């Protein structure tokens, strides 16, 4: 493998790693999946503040 290809592969791997970490850490999948449900099947969102 040429140096150029090695750099491209490393860059692609890095992008995939960061994207995967972003999707795992920053996306709230419970919300993302819930919002795709039909209205009558969606879970309620319940708001609260950190006080009794």
């Amino acid at each position, binding site marked *: 493998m040429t140096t150029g290809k090695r750099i491209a592969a490393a860059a692609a791997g890095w992008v995939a790693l960061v994207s995967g970490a972003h999707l795992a850490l920053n996306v709230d999948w419970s919300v993302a999946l819930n919002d795709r449900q039909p209205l*009558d099947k969606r*879970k309620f969102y*319940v*708001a*609260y*503040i950190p*006080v009794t």
Partner: protein
Amino acid sequence: MTDYIARHSLGENSFIPRKFQGFPEIKEALIGNRMQAGFMVAPMAMALRAQGVPIKIVYLGHRSGSAVVVQKDGPIRGVRDLAGRTVAIPSRFSDEYLIVRRALKREGVPAEAVRFLEMAPPDVVGALAAGAIDAFSMGEPFPSQSEMMGFGRILFPAQRYWPDYMSCVLVVREDAIDRRPAAVQTLVDGIARSGLWLDEGKPHREHAADFVGRYYFNQPPELLRWALTKDLQRVIYTRLSPRKADFDLVRDLMLEAGTLDRPVQFEEYVDVRFAEGTVGLTPWDFEAGGRTR
């Protein structure tokens, strides 16, 4: 709490909890249907309903749980000393505002003698420590936090001037009630069972302080442990059905304070069906790391 227990023992959750930093933001989220349900202070819910916002109060979040706090070594030793002082409240549409007015009236001090300042709950402890305010009226755990940090002193708990005091209530959008009554009942049942579980004793409260502090409130568990166990009567999680007499009192105090422009009727803003559905429920049978029935 209901969310945690259902998720970690039943392996399911029937709703998605979303944390906010203040009641006005919850109000906007409910109006915009970004939230279908939420906990907010009772007067705000009543005022919203009076203004035509399609929500109903279906259950209480707790009883007691609020206090007026002053600087530990400051000059305020009694309610009368609040005259001429600045008191932080979460909102003029809150029971924390009404309880100060009620205490002042009992002690013969006109409410106009006190300067009320609306402040987001998480900010009041720092403001008191810095001397930016002379007192605050707020729900737990902020009174406990000021005590733990050594500079706050509870001037009076809400229940001293208002037995059976209530503050946060569960409101649900009317379209959600009409379309999904079974889901609303599941939510109310979960809160009722969580309340019964919490009021079973200190070990349950200690356990709740741990997981609520870590996963929901983002607050130190030892702070919540202080708030929930120092005195088990500081916050009460049973007798949460909405009662007309309690709300009539809030309504009358709001009319007196000028935060409600007409005497709304109990049936107009409360739906008691779901609270009635909780009769006979038992506490969660939940142990740390165990299964629940």
